[in-house]
């Protein structure tokens, strides 16, 4: 905009006026609904609101209570474990599948459809299906035992120590297909000549992928990363359908804590405090990343 040197034209504010008017509703929605709603939530997290929002401020009481609640701590720990493994495995499996499909194999369409299909299912269906698959009397354990391994035990959903991995398996099954497709699109965008050049230089296939192709696919990885991360933070329905937080409170997640305390426990203040903490954790991850991503470009 600033590159305009025509003095007679009005200031930048009135350029493309119709486009700006057209975008007013969206800007208002963003400001009022997203920013306004967020500010309101943060503000009321400092009150002792119960069923109805009230403005009797109690300082940091809600946060103190939040961080001394075992269920919240377990939720955070679960989210960290789920997030860490989900991030790594989704990227690794998604990229590996995409790379394998990209080797011009026969029946690519069939495999692509099979791998992407779980993504067409909702988390509720995924959760229920995996609840049955991991049920010791119906699923994997009983199948393996009926094949002759009588002492085989695989019962993650009833074991508080490993239940979160049972959920992780279901989450990976549902989510890797999409990442695979995104990676595949990225791989298809790589010029054939790169491969030819690598072959001329005598670089091995795996090494080419790791040293040449992956660095070139940086934007694709960023997209995948954002998709996976947002999926991790908002995980709720999968847990509700698969374990409902059980056994005990071993597979609770933060979003479930927020919903429970806002509506079932009728304690809005506590729910708002928890959701504010979720927002803070997102910001803590986002800001350094945005700084690296956008701050770096200006210098370059």
């Amino acid at each position: 905009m600033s590159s305009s040197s025509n003095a007679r034209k009005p200031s930048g504010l009135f350029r493309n006026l119709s486009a700006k008017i057209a975008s007013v509703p969206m800007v208002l929605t963003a400001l009022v609904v997203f920013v306004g709603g967020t500010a309101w939530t943060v503000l009321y997290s400092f009150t002792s609101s119960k069923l109805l929002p009230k403005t009797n401020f109690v300082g940091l009481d809600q946060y103190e209570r939040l961080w001394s609640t075992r269920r919240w701590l377990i939720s955070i720990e679960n989210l960290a474990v789920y997030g860490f493994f989900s991030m790594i495995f989704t990227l690794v499996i998604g990229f590996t599948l995409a790379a394998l499909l990209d080797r011009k194999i026969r029946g690519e369409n069939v495999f692509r459809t099979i791998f992407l299909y779980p993504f067409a299912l909702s988390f509720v269906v995924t959760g229920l299906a995996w609840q049955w698959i991991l049920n010791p009397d119906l699923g994997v354990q009983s199948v393996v035992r009926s094949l002759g391994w009588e002492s085989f035990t695989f019962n993650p959903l009833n074991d508080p120590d490993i239940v979160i991995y049972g959920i992780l398996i279901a989450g990976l099954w549902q989510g890797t297909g999409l990442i695979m497709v995104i990676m595949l699109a990225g791989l298809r965008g790589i010029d054939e000549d790169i491969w030819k050049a690598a072959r001329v230089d005598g670089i091995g296939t795996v090494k080419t992928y790791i040293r040449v192709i992956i660095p070139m696919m940086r934007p694709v990885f960023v997209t995948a990363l954002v998709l996976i991360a947002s999926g991790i933070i908002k995980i709720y329905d999968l847990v509700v359908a698969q374990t409902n937080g059980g056994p005990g409170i071993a597979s609770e997640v933060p979003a479930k804590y927020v919903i429970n305390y806002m509506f079932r426990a009728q304690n809005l203040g506590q729910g708002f405090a928890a959701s504010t903490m979720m927002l803070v954790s997102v910001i803590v991850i986002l800001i350094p990343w945005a700084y690296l991503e956008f701050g770096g470009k200006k210098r370059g």
Partner: protein
Amino acid sequence: MKTIAKLMASAALCTASMAHAGELEVTHWWTSGGEAAAVAEFAKAFDATGNTWVDGAIAGSGGTARPIIISRILGGDPMGATQLNHGRQAEELIEAGLMTDLTEVAEAEGWKDLVNPSSLLDACTFEGRIYCVPVNIHSWQWIWLSHDAFAKIDTPVPADWNEFAAAAPKLEEAGIVPLAMGQQGWQQNGAFGVMTIAIAGLDAWRKVVVDKDADTARGPEYAAVFEAAVDARTFAANSNVQDWNLATNMVITGKAGAQIMGDWAQGEFQIAGQVAGEDYTCLPGLGVNEILDTGGDAFYFPVIDDEDTKAAQMALASTLISPEVQVAFNLKKGSLPVRGDVDLTAANDCMQKGLDILDAGGIMPSGDMNLTADTQTQIEDLMAEFWTSDMSATDAQERYADIIASAD
């Protein structure tokens, strides 16, 4: 002058009867077979008054339905009437002026004298005004014992919790799960509440739950309760079911020795064709302390600014508590009626036991009436963790006392 007054009076009567043709949407979460049949009795009686009952059943338990109901009332789209558990759940809605005051109807019909126990009406009363109609009494304090299971180990059916605890290892040896327990927070919390009354006694319970006295919660009476809960956890270790009715089914089929569950479990035994005293035994208060709590369901009437609707709401309020409707409803629901002056000859052995205890005054207010949903959720979370981990009795007791100390 007299003629004018008479004319005015008759005109008032006319408008009153005209206003009776109202349509009311009634929301509730009674969707299982027996519950739906019971609600149909309400609908029939209400339609007979010339109004129309529009059924708004919400599937899922109270935990699912309550947020929907509350958000509709808050969102300015109130229903004509709704089921809620009376107690503190609706406190803030009443405070905000969103619930209709029923005091006039209540005084005209003398609810104060006929509702038994009177604590039910107290739970509906807020600052001296009445805001809900209690419709039934459900009590938690029951243990259900399978005759089959005890026949298998050649032991007489226990008459109280201590005998049961003594027989439990034998059941275990015979491959029977001593105590069936659904792995859900509210069931574990409920069972714990029942054990509190039976083991710590009413006085200690009252100090903790009504007066929120954390010192009593740290005291020896409650220590005994937590010890017993650790035992119960061992007995229930192999009970891998989730829903309460599946746990009840374990008792029905003799796979489990017993279950601690409220009187709604009775419906399951009835459907399975079992007879109280022959196939199963029920012990109120675990056979130790025969006291029943008086939780239950109540109907609230959100404020709707329309005279016809208001008249229909009042008509429904008085229908719900009328003697005939109380009998018809409670027989189908398996719960006890809220008024002492009705005749329940058709009640079975267990219901009769409950009625006798009510007559003898062995009652206490339910937890719903004394603890906020917030505190209850915290205790449920603690119980869910306690029952599925190897948390020690002392740790659990300490954390329980902390929750009580911060309760409001």
